[in-house]
C-alpha cells in the first residue's frame, strides 16, 4: 500500500488507467451490467410502461418514491447504468486501441524466436535422425511459405520459426471496435431520431403535422421541420381473427389500404404489420387498431349537430372499447360516455366476447351541462368528467337504432361500425450504421473465434537430432495437422537432399 501512496499524480493516473483497462475490470463491469439490467425488466419502465410505473408507485408509495429517485423505473438511462457502461466502453477502448497497434507491429515483424524448452509448448515431437540443417531448413521454410505461413529462418541458432493465423486477432479487435461502434451509433442516432403516433379513422385523411399526432418526441438534433410533408388517407382497414377453437380471437390478418399524398402526387399503398411504409425518410408502422362507431346527434329541432366516426380505445383483447363524445353548448352542452362492444354479450356485465363486429352494440350514457371545454384546462378526449353534469339517461344501440333523448334534448343514431388504425411514425437514422457495425461484429466474432492462431518451430539440437514444437494460441483443435505438415516437409527435404 505504501507504494501506492508514494506515487506521483501521473503514476497514480497511470495506475488507475491500467486497472481500468485490465480484463479483470472489464469482466467485473460486464457482470455488474447483468445484475443492473434485471430491475429494468422486473420493474415497469417509464419509457415502455409509464402507466405501470405510476400504478406501482401508487401501490407502494414509500418504496416507490425511493426507487423512483434512484432511477429504478428508468434503469437504462439511469446514472448508475450509463456510468457502468461508459466505464466499460472506456475500458474497452483503452484495451483495444493499444492492442491494435501492437498487433499491427506484430504482423510486420518476424515470427518470434524458438523457445529454449519445447516441453512447455502445446505439442512437441522429436526426430532422431541426423541430417544437414541448412538444406532441410531451406526446404521446410519454402514449404511453409507456400502454405501461407510467415517464416523466419535462423541458421545461426539453427531453427525455423513460423506463424499463422494473424486474422484471429484482427477479428477479435474488429468485434470489440464494432461493439463500440454499435453503442455510439445508437447513442448518436437517438439525437437525430423522432417518433410519433397518430390515429387515423377509415375514410379520413391526416396530415403529418404536429397537431395530428397523439404523441410526438424528437431527438435534440431534430425538430418539427424534419417531419415528412405527407397526408395519409385510410381507405379501408381489414382485420381478421382466429375463429377456430385453438387460440380463438387471436389476430390473424391486419391490412391498411392507404392513399398517400406527397405535395400533389397521390399513390395507393398497403401497410401491413411487418411491412412498414417508407416515406421521405420516415417509416410508417401499423401498430394498432380499434373501432370508431359512426354516430349522428340531432338537437330538439331535428338539426344535425354532430355526425362523425368516434374513436374508442380498446380495453381488452376482444376490443371492449371506451370513449366519449363532447358537444359543448354553454350550460346546455351534451356529453356521452360511450362503450363499444364488437361482439356484445350481456349474460353478465356487458362485455365483448370476440374482436370482430359480429354483434356490435354501442352503449351510451348521456349527460347534460357545462362540459368545461372553454375553461382552458386540457381534457382527455376519451373520457368525460361528469362531476358537474346532470344525468340524462343510458341506452344500448345496435347499428341503425335511434335513441330519442329524454327531456326532448334531441336524438342519437348509431349509424354503423367503422374502424381506426394507429400508425407509429418514426425515423431512426442510427439504425443503418448500427446494422453495419453489427454485421462487422458478427464477422469479427466468427473470425476471432474460429481462425486458429498458432506458432511452430523446428530446431536442430546440439546432438544433431531435430525437434518440432508447436504452440496453439486458440482453443481450436488441429495443431497436430501442423506438426504433421512440418514433419512431412522435413521428410521430403531429407529425401531430396
Amino acid at each position, binding site marked *: 500500500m505504501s507504494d501506492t501512496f508514494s506515487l506521483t499524480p501521473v503514476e497514480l493516473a497511470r495506475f488507475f488507467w491500467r486497472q481500468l483497462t485490465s480484463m479483470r475490470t*472489464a469482466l467485473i463491469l460486464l457482470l455488474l451490467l447483468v445484475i443492473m439490467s434485471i430491475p429494468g425488466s422486473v420493474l415497469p419502465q417509464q419509457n415502455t410502461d409509464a402507466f405501470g410505473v405510476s400504478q406501482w408507485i401508487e401501490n407502494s408509495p414509500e418504496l416507490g418514491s425511493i426507487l423512483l429517485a434512484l432511477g429504478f423505473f428508468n434503469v437504462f438511462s439511469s446514472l448508475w447504468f450509463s456510468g457502468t457502461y461508459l466505464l466499460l466502453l472506456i475500458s474497452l477502448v483503452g484495451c483495444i486501441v493499444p492492442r491494435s497497434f501492437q498487433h499491427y507491429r506484430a504482423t510486420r515483424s518476424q515470427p518470434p524466436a524458438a523457445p529454449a524448452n519445447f516441453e512447455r509448448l502445446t505439442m512437441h515431437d522429436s526426430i532422431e535422425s541426423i541430417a544437414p540443417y541448412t538444406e532441410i531448413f531451406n526446404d521446410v521454410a519454402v514449404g511453409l511459405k507456400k502454405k501461407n505461413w510467415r517464416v523466419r529462418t535462423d541458421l545461426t541458432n539453427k531453427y525455423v520459426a513460423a506463424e499463422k493465423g494473424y486474422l484471429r486477432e484482427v477479428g477479435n479487435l474488429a468485434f470489440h471496435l464494432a461493439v463500440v461502434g454499435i453503442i455510439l451509433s445508437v447513442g448518436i442516432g437517438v439525437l437525430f431520431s423522432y417518433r410519433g403516433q397518430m390515429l387515423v379513422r377509415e375514410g379520413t385523411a391526416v396530415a403529418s403535422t404536429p397537431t395530428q399526432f397523439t404523441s410526438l418526441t424528437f431527438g435534440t438534433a431534430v425538430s418539427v421541420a424534419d417531419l415528412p410533408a405527407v397526408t395519409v388517407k385510410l381507405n379501408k382497414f381489414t382485420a381478421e381473427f382466429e375463429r377456430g377453437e385453438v387460440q380463438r380471437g387471436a389476430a390473424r390478418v391486419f391490412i391498411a389500404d392507404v392513399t398517400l399524398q406527397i405535395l400533389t402526387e397521390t399513390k395507393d399503398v398497403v401497410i401491413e404489420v411487418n411491412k412498414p411504409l417508407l416515406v421521405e425518410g420516415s417509416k410508417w408502422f401499423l401498430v394498432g387498431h380499434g373501432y370508431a362507431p359512426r354516430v349522428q346527434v340531432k338537437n330538439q329541432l331535428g338539426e344535425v349537430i354532430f355526425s362523425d366516426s368516434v374513436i374508442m380505445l380498446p380495453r381488452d383483447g376482444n376490443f371492449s372499447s371506451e370513449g366519449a363524445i363532447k358537444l359543448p353548448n354553454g350550460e346546455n352542452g351534451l356529453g356521452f360516455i360511450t362503450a363499444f362492444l364488437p361482439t356484445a354479450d350481456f349474460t353478465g356485465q356487458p362485455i365483448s366476447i370476440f374482436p370482430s363486429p359480429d354483434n356490435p352494440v354501442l352503449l351510451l350514457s348521456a349527460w347534460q351541462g357545462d362540459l368545461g371545454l372553454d375553461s382552458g384546462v386540457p381534457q382527455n378526449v376519451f373520457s368525460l368528467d361528469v362531476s358537474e353534469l346532470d344525468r340524462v339517461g343510458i341506452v344500448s344501440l345496435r347499428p341503425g337504432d335511434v335513441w330519442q333523448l329524454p327531456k326532448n334534448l334531441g336524438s342519437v343514431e348509431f349509424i354503423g361500425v367503422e374502424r381506426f388504425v394507429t400508425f407509429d411514425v418514426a425515423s431512426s437514422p442510427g439504425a443503418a450504421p448500427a446494422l453495419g457495425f453489427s454485421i462487422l461484429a458478427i464477422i469479427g466474432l466468427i473470425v476471432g473465434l474460429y481462425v486458429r492462431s498458432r506458432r511452430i518451430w523446428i530446431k536442430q539440437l546440439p546432438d544433431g537430432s531435430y525437434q518440432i514444437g508447436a504452440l496453439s494460441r486458440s482453443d481450436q483443435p488441429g495443431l497436430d495437422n501442423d506438426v504433421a505438415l512440418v514433419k512431412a516437409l522435413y521428410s521430403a527435404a531429407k529425401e531430396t537432399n
Partner: protein
Amino acid sequence: MDAALISNLSVLTSSIFLTLATYVSFIRLIGSKNPNRFAKISYSLTIVSTIVLAIGVIARGVAADRAPWGNMYEYAIAGTLAVLFVYLIIARRQDISGIAVFVLMPALLSLGLAQTVLYIPVADLVPALKSGWLVIHVASTIIAGGGFSLGFAFAVGQLIAAKSKSKLAEKLPAESQLELLSYRVSAWGFAVWTFAVLAGAIWAEEAWGRFWGWDPKETWALITWIAYAAYLHARVTVGWRGGKAAAIAIVGYLTYLFNFFGVNILFDGLHSYGGL
C-alpha cells in the same frame, strides 16, 4: 392420419426412446460393469430418439404450414432436437458417454414439459409473427440455445469433475476435456446468439418501428449476451479460469432459461405470444 397427429405421436415416441437412453446412460455412470456397452446402447437409443423427434418437428411444421417454432411448445421440441443433434455430433467424435446423462436428462425434462405444460394444438400465428424473420430469428435462438444447453451440461460436469475426491468425478470425462467442450459449444452459442439478437433487432425495426426498445425479452436477451461475454473473458482472465468461469456459464444459461420461461409467463411484453 394427419400431420398434427403424426407429430404428436413422434414426439411421444421420441421421449420414450429418450427415457430409455437416459436410463441406460445413468447405469453407465453409476454402474461398474461394461461401461462401453451401456455407452453404445445409450448412443444408439439417442440416435433413434433424435430421428423420431426430427420427424415430429417436421410434421408439426407441415401441419401448421409454417416454420415449426411459433409458440413455446414448438420452441421446446425444436430446441430439444437442436440439443440432441449437437450432442450426437460431439459424441460421434469423442467419448463423452460419462456426461451423457447430464445432457439427456434435461432434454427429457424439456420434452416432458413440452408435452404436458406447454402443449397447444396446431394454430396459425398472429400477424406480427408472420415474417421471414420468424424463421431466421427464432431458428438462430434455438441453435444458440442448443449450444448454451450443452455448455451448461458440460460446465456442471466440469465442476463435479473438478472435485477429484468424489466417486462420481472418476467416471466423468476429464475436467479439462469438459472445460474445452463447454467453451466450444458456449462460444458457438454466443456467436449464433449475437446473430439472433441482430436478426431480432432488424425484425423489431420492421414490425414495431424500433430496433431496440427494452422489451423484457430484449432485455433478457442482452443479459444472456453479456453473461456469455463475461464467461468468454473469464476463461482468459487470471484468477477466473476453471470453476469461476464455469459458474458464469451456468448463470448465463439460467438467464437464457429465464428468458424462455420467466419472461413468457411473468411479464407482459411485446413478445408475449407464447401460447400459454
